[in-house]
Every structure is written in structure tokens, then in C-alpha cells.
């Protein structure tokens, strides 16, 4: 569904954010895009959606080059940015003006999502709280029935019940022909929703692996003492939370925060395991 080859991108010509970044994404998955502040998560998403243009390299999204911004591609992309602007109109007017760009827009589904998110329909968008606005654009984005769904920090601003609703909605939104990419720092909001982890660091992809592959190769567990097999560890109440090679085919639960810190701290030890 998405092929990125040797992408070079920078906001200034002298300082590249991505150097020869390559990656392939396929449909039927929810990808979790992780990285430190400034690692380029939002920028990568903007590249995919044709909102910024690379210096060089090639990008193929559903058979199109997003930088050309052809309507046939854009109607298949739903992009939920972290920062957004909504006009001073009510929801029905907003839909009337914007849904026409998406030939597969599903009005009854949109209505049901608004109800699920408990959105006051009669209110002007501009008078809603940040969280309510966010839920409106998430509902609108999913109702477009786009094949590529890109979400930048979608759970920011959502209250506690809305986060659970969001997870339910995303679990049902994943279909065989859809590709969902979610960038987030709130890993605990989403860790059971993501099936493949993409981590950006130092101008490129530091790790891209499915949860199954990660827990096949690594084991995450609490240990009392640290020995030389431990790749990375953090002290905890009852010893250490450790990441180590999965020599004994143990089943463990992926700890995304621990993995994140392990990738940042021990890239050289992890690289050979995933190649």
C-alpha cells in the first residue's frame, strides 16, 4: 500500500530530518509510529499525505505519488492532524461543505460515531472544547471510508471514557483493505491496538517490527538481578523491568515504553536481532 524509498527530507536544505529513509507498509494493519520529540513523526505523516515535499527519493501511496496531490489519491486519505482549525459553523454545514470530497463518505456511520462520542450536534464547532472538536474530526475522518487513515496523536485531549470509545472504534475500523497509521506518545492509550511498531530515531527508521516478531525475539520481564543477557533494564519496585533476547521462546507482553527506551539506549545491541 505504501512504499518509501530513500526519502531525503529537510525543512532546510542544510539540515536533513530524514536521510535515505525506506519503508513499506501494507493494508490490514494498525501501525504505531513512535519517536522522540522532533524525530519527525508528524513530518513523515505529512509526507505521506502530500502536505510537504521531499528533497529526493520516491514515495508510492496506493499507486500515486502523494506530492502530486491528485484528487484520486486524496479522497482515499484521511488525515487527522494534531493541530487543526475548525470553522464557526455547525456540524451539518461542515459535513455539507467537506464530505463531497470523499465519494465513499458514509453519513449514517458519521451520525453513529457522533452519538458514540456524545457530541452535541446543534453546537457550533468553534464553541466546542478541544476534545470535542477532536472527536468530530476523528468521526468525520473515519466516515470518509478512506483506505489510508493517518492520525497524529489522536488521543490527546480525549477524556477517559472517550479514550476507551476511541479504542473500540479503531478496533472495528481496521479492515483488510485499510492501513491505519497512528503516531503517539501516549503508548498506554494504544498499546493493545497497535500490531506493528515503527520507531524513528536519528534521521531514519530505528525499528519496524510486528508485535509478534518483537515478542518472538525479545522477552520483557521482571528480574531480580541483571546479568549480561539483559539488553536494557529499568529499576522497578520488585527488581528490574528488563528486555532480553528470547532464548527460551517465552511468551511475554510487549512493554512499549521499555522497548522505546531500549531502542534509544541500545540501538547497536538491538539492530542485529531484528535483521
Amino acid at each position, binding site marked *: 500500500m505504501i512504499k518509501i524509498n530513500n526519502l531525503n527530507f529537510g525543512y532546510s536544505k542544510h539540515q536533513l530530518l530524514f536521510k535515505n529513509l525506506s519503508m513499506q507498509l501494507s493494508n490490514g494493519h494498525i501501525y504505531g509510529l513512535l519517536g522522540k520529540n522532533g524525530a519527525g513523526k508528524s513530518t513523515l505523516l505529512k509526507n505521506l499525505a502530500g502536505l510537504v515535499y521531499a528533497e529526493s527519493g520516491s514515495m508510492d501511496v496506493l499507486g500515486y505519488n502523494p506530492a502530486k496531490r491528485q484528487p484520486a489519491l486524496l479522497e482515499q486519505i484521511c488525515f487527522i492532524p494534531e493541530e487543526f482549525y475548525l470553522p464557526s459553523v455547525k456540524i451539518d454545514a461542515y459535513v455539507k461543505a467537506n464530505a463531497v470530497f470523499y465519494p465513499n463518505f458514509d453519513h449514517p456511520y458519521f451520525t453513529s460515531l457522533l452519538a458514540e462520542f456524545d457530541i452535541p450536534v446543534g453546537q457550533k464547532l468553534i464553541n466546542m472544547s478541544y476534545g470535542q472538536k477532536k472527536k468530530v474530526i476523528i468521526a468525520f475522518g473515519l466516515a470518509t471510508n478512506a483506505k489510508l487513515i493517518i492520525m497524529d496523536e489522536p488521543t490527546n485531549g480525549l477524556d477517559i471514557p472517550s479514550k476507551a470509545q476511541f479504542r*473500540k472504534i479503531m*478496533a472495528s475500523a*481496521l479492515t483488510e483493505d485499510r492501513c491505519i497509521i497512528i503516531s503517539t506518545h501516549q503508548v498506554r492509550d494504544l498499546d*493493545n*491496538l*497497535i500490531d506493528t511498531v515503527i520507531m524513528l530515531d536519528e534521521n531514519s527508521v530505528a525499528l519496524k517490527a510486528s508485535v509478534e516478531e518483537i515478542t518472538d525475539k525479545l522477552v520483557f520481564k521482571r528480574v531480580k538481578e541483571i546479568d549480561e543477557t539483559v539488553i536494557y533494564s529499568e529499576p522497578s519496585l520488585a527488581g528490574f523491568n528488563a528486555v532480553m533476547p528470547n532464548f527460551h521462546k517465552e511468551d511475554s*507482553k510487549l512493554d512499549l515504553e521499555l522497548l522505546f527506551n531500549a531502542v534509544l539506549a541500545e540501538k547497536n545491541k538491538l539492530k542485529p536481532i531484528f535483521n
Partner: protein
Amino acid sequence: MEFRDNKAIYLQIAAYVCEHILLGKWKVDEKVSSVREMAVTLEVNPNTVMRTYELLQNKNIISNKRGIGFFVAEDALKNVKDYLKTQFIEEELPVVFRNVYLLNIGFDELETRYNTFVKETFNP
């Protein structure tokens, strides 16, 4: 359902399905929740639920009827018990044994406590 923090999610979902079968909430030949329904209920990725269902299929606990969905298999009850027993013996019993040994708990005491527990919990 509350997920614990140390066990793979697809295995926790498997335990959840097994418990439903053991408690008779899902009976032999009855349809189990679809992958999508289960994913929505538990707020997890549908691919994770698919992995669980593949595991349970391999253990002959559920079976896939093409085009209709997943059903509780004929010998599910026996197979669930075998599966859970193996897991208990491999994972939980060593922890119990360790404490029994470290705390010098005698088998007589264990037996008495076990009998009281069964009486209080299962035949009140």
C-alpha cells in the same frame, strides 16, 4: 476484562475464551464472538484476536466454519482443561512450590487449607 501486565495479550484473550467455555457461557457447537466483536469488546487489534483464535483452533477448542464464523468445538471442555492444566503446571505451580518450600508449609496444612477452600468456594 482487565489485562495483566506480564502475559502476552493473545494468551490472555485465550484464557478469557477458555473461561467462558468452562463456565458454560459458551456451549459446544455455539458460535463464539466474531474476531471483530471480540476486538471491539476488549479494545484490542483484530489481528491479535485472530492470533488467539488460530491458537484455540490448533488446540481443538474452537473450530472455523468457513463463511459463518468460529464455534465451540465438540471436545472443547476436555481440551480447555488440558490446555489450562498444562499452563498451570508450567507457569503457576512453580511459583506456589517456591513459596511452599521457602515458608516451610507442610503438606498436611496445605491439604486442610485446600479442602476448606474447596468447601467454602464451590459448595457454600
